[in-house]
């Protein structure tokens, strides 16, 4: 709360310091300003939906890619390495363009802007998730696997009930990081026309010619979203650690 107050004061000071600022475009006390604000805020829906869908997909894919990376077999580990190295090497913006404009030519399937965005973001992020999961799982001691073996648990149950619950606690801060990262990267999907926060701001700038004010609001929108996410992740960390004493 304190943080929001500080930014509010900062904003007030900035607006007062020069006649070139035109806060009227986003002034909630005027009808036009209020409409503009409302227009910008509606983008939050797609920013959140896109990021959350993509992060869920990337966590699942990341875990599935991490598991062969832990195998004793070289060929399985190679699958993991190739995936991580190749996917990690493609810039997200390039991947978005490739998936939206290139992939339909290759496969004949046209993805909507939303699903193309989800696909590109999730794909890109999954390589990082895979590395996070691999590190987290590898940090669990050998004794845990041996204890699981000694009570005859199979591989799936060992992962599900013994290893992953412990690994996820340890990688929670890193997963939080990726979620923040995803929220920010979702702004890139604006280039293919996704009606999320950044796209809305761009459209407003074109009609209002007040980039400074509108983009400042955009920055604050992302800031607010990410502070909420950070607080959520920290709450989750506390809750999960509480059971470990």
């Amino acid at each position, binding site marked *: 709360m304190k943080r929001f107050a500080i930014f509010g004061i900062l904003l007030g000071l900035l607006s007062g310091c020069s006649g070139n600022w035109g806060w009227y475009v986003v002034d909630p006390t005027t009808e036009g300003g209020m409409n503009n604000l409302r227009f910008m805020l509606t983008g939050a829906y797609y920013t959140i939906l896109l990021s959350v869908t993509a992060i869920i997909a990337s966590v699942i894919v990341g875990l599935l890619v991490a598991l062969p990376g832990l195998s004793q077999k070289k060929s399985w580990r190679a699958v993991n390495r190739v995936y991580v190295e190749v996917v990690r090497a493609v810039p997200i913006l390039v991947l978005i363009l490739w998936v939206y404009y290139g992939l339909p030519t290759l496969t004949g399937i046209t993805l909507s802007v939303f699903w193309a965005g989800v696909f590109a973001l999730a794909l890109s992020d999954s390589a990082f998730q895979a590395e996070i999961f691999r590190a987290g799982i590898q940090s669990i001691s050998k004794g845990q696997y041996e204890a699981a073996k*000694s009570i005859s648990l199979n591989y799936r149950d060992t992962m599900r009930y013994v290893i992953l619950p412990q690994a996820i606690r340890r990688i929670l801060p890193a997963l939080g990081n990726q979620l923040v990262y995803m929220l920010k990267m979702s702004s890139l999907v604006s280039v293919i026309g996704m009606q999320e926060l950044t796209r809305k701001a761009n459209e407003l700038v074109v009609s209002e010619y007040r980039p400074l004010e509108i983009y400042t609001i955009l920055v604050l929108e992302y800031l607010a979203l990410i502070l909420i996410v950070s607080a959520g992740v920290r709450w989750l960390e506390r809750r999960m650690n509480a059971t470990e004493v």
Partner: protein
Amino acid sequence: MPGDQPIIQIKNISKYFDDFQALKNVSLDVGLGERVVVCGPSGSGKSTLIRCINRLEAHEAGEIIVDGVTLTDSREALDKIRGNVGMVFQQFNLFPHLTVLDNLTLGPKRVLRLSQAEAEVRAMKYLERVQIPDQAQKYPRQLSGGQQQRVAIARSLCMEPRILLFDEPTSALDPEMIAEVLEVMTELASTGMTMVVVTHEMGFARKVADKMVFMDKGEIVETGSPEQFFTAPTSQRCRTFLDQILNH
């Protein structure tokens, strides 16, 4: 008479860690209901030997037969053997994110397909056996080392194995907690459980062992009854070891 029909047959097994030979042509029979104590200096291969029995380590040559099943990498053989063989570790290896009760019910529920209620009844029965039923809702970290090891023993018992392996069960414990764990193990021995115990606790060995095994440098140097082993060891290496461990 215990020892009539071997439930564990170890025949000429060898095991290498890279260039180091941890086990050299080791053979050992353990009879049903027999209590075998394995001792020897560190690095002698005694832990490796018992870890081979439930294939936490794979042997490279020779054969291990547990209750008629030859130990291989096949899922079927492993499931049969691990179902029969429980293990207690030096470092307890309890699952830290689960309560004591959940540590105990996990195997029975997932492997033996017991219901939650059945698994809990069984867990409480064995927690009472190791004398800590009041700790069921706690997490492992909230318990002392001795209590944790007793939970680990109860976790093994919940799978109702015919054989229990103990890999230096008291070596990670503070001295004042060793007695409570040994007491539980002694009580278990009196019920006829087949036990193979790697330990330096010679008082325990003298009290419960049917057979003593002394290992050094990857070989079984001497086996014998406790009386013979402690009073008249035949090999010089064994005499030296007993001198060091009994007269410190």
